[in-house]
């Protein structure tokens, strides 16, 4: 006899949310408050000592944010989650929980550019060293591992798009090295791909993108898969050593398979402070209720747009794993049976000038630096996000002068294609 496990869309609407115990409100209320009164002095002491579950102060936790946390944990199949101010804050707290100065981690070199910056520059000043590896060559991950390596970081579908990461192969490398595998699942979303089923120990999201989905709120989420054995190596003191800030509690002993999420909250979020506004949490939650519907339509539209571009005379090539013949198509068939997502790049025969002309002539597409909006978005990296790089560096980053990135929205696909068609006629 087992309990029935609800389907994805049921969880997307219900997980974490319940009618408000005091008012009966059915939609999740926005608890726009900094702090919460204690029942009594004893209750306050128990909360501060982590002896009971409850609310103290919104930097540490908030009931609206908690609904978002439980919902994303449920959708990803994790044991617990933590919502924070942005995707970058999520990465910051994850590494702060795992690494001490002098430690290393291995990261795929095909990542969102902002993450490459965060790892190369911001993290260096904490003494956390990144070693880069190539997701197209799994052995490069093995070669990058040293006795100081504490984690591996990859994106499931890599931004700027088109790249599908072989998670099972990289998870095998992580298991052999005895380190957790962290997967940024922002571009795929749990609707298309649940990385925990393929060996991820920690999943992170920029909720700014498809989870929120409407281009209105910055946010991030950390999901604890509950799979990693923190005690095996003794190399993760935040989880296995008595914590002086909490009268000597050992987190993994007290919180079992959700100790990592608790550590990110009570040692990371509490002390470093990147709390998510409850209002943003509410908007992201509302977005998640339609996640399955939206991402399905995003993927269908993206495939139709990719097919259109692949046959267009002004286009030199399209990198979309959903297209048969794409170098990542086989991996997409394994990992992404419902679709290959909304974000991809294509190359223009007319090079840099054509890229600039295209973004100047679209009318429905918005020219901006984001992805995962209901609206269709376009950017020419060489003239914007990647403009400070040399041409060679641009090409290595997948952002050569002729490359354009799309985040295909959920408007009527005929209108999306018509807009590209009229703008391509002018390049």
């Amino acid at each position, binding site marked *: 006899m087992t309990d029935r496990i609800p389907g994805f869309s049921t969880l997307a609407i219900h997980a*974490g949310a319940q009618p408000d*115990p005091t008012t*009966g409100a059915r939609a999740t209320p926005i608890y726009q408050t900094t702090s919460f009164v204690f029942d009594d002095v004893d*209750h306050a002491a128990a909360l501060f*000592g982590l002896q009971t*579950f409850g609310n103290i102060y919104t930097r540490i936790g908030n009931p609206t944010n908690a609904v978002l946390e439980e919902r994303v*944990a449920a959708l990803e199949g994790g044991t617990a989650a933590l919502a924070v101010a942005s995707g970058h804050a999520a990465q910051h707290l994850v590494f702060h929980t795992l690494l001490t100065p002098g430690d290393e981690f291995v990261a795929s070199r095909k990542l969102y550019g902002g993450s490459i910056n965060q790892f190369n520059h911001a993290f260096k000043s904490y003494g956390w060293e990144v070693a880069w590896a190539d997701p197209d060559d799994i052995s490069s991950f093995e070669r990058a591992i040293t006795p100081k390596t504490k984690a591996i970081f990859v994106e499931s579908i890599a931004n700027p798009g088109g790249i599908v990461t072989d998670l099972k192969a990289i998870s095998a490398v992580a298991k052999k090295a005895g380190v957790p595998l962290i997967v940024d699942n922002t571009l795929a979303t749990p609707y298309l791909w649940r990385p925990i089923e393929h060996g991820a120990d920690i999943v992170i999201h920029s909720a700014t993108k498809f989870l929120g989905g409407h281009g209105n709120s910055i946010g991030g989420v950390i999901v604890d898969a509950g799979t990693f054995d923190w005690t095996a190596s003794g190399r993760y003191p935040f989880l296995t050593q008595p914590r002086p800030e*909490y009268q000597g509690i050992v987190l993994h002993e007290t919180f079992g398979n959700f100790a990592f999420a608790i550590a990110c909250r009570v040692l990371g979020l509490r002390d470093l402070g990147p709390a998510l506004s409850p209002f943003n949490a509410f908007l992201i939650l509302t977005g998640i209720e339609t996640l399955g519907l939206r991402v399905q339509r995003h993927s269908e539209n993206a495939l139709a747009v990719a097919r259109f571009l692949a046959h267009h005379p002004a286009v030199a090539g399209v990198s979309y794993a959903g297209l048969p013949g794409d170098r990542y198509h086989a991996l997409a068939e394994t990992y992404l049976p419902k679709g290959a997502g909304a974000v991809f790049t294509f190359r223009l025969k007319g090079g840099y000038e054509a890229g600039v002309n295209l973004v100047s002539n679209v009318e429905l597409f918005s020219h901006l630096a984001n992805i995962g909006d209901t609206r269709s978005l376009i950017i020419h990296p060489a003239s914007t996000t990647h403009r400070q790089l040399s041409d060679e560096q641009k090409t290595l980053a997948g952002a050569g002068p002729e490359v354009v990135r799309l985040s295909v929205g959920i408007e009527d696909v005929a209108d999306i294609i018509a807009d590209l068609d009229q703008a391509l006629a002018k390049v």
Partner: protein
Amino acid sequence: MNHDQYPDAYIRAILSGVKTVAIVGASANPARPSFFVTKYLAERGYRVFPVNPGQAGKLVAGLPAYATLADVPEPIDMVDVFRASEHVPQVVEEALALTPLPKVIWTQLGVRNDAAAATAEAAGVQVVMNRCPKIEYARLSGEIGWTGVNSRTISARRPQRLGQGVQRLSIDRPGPTRT
């Protein structure tokens, strides 16, 4: 009973049925999980009896502690075991010697002894192993969601507040009642 996975209804029935709980191995150290569980269950309205020979006659989490299960002055509904798996048979033996018999023997996260469980079940005692009653209570009442933990439950019924406070929920969540 399959001890790999318990239906929520089984755990809920146990936690809403028992009134008195003996915690074998309750520590007086406020950083230990056994202390947390003792205090938490007492705050949720259970009558809790810490059992620890080293603390007999003293207070653990403000509650009088006893040396053995047999010393506890009231009938025990549930015995919660904070001892290593190899010590579980001995605790079961002591529990089965009580009159009246406890209804439930529960062993904490990481503690499991299938042979001892079979002995208890043969005597008509329900068994839960490798679980924490604090986590299970918080999961089924909805409290655990305040900490972002996946409760693996969904419900459109309103949670019930417990007692006077605002930050305590009941394990029972009745549906609409007819008048």
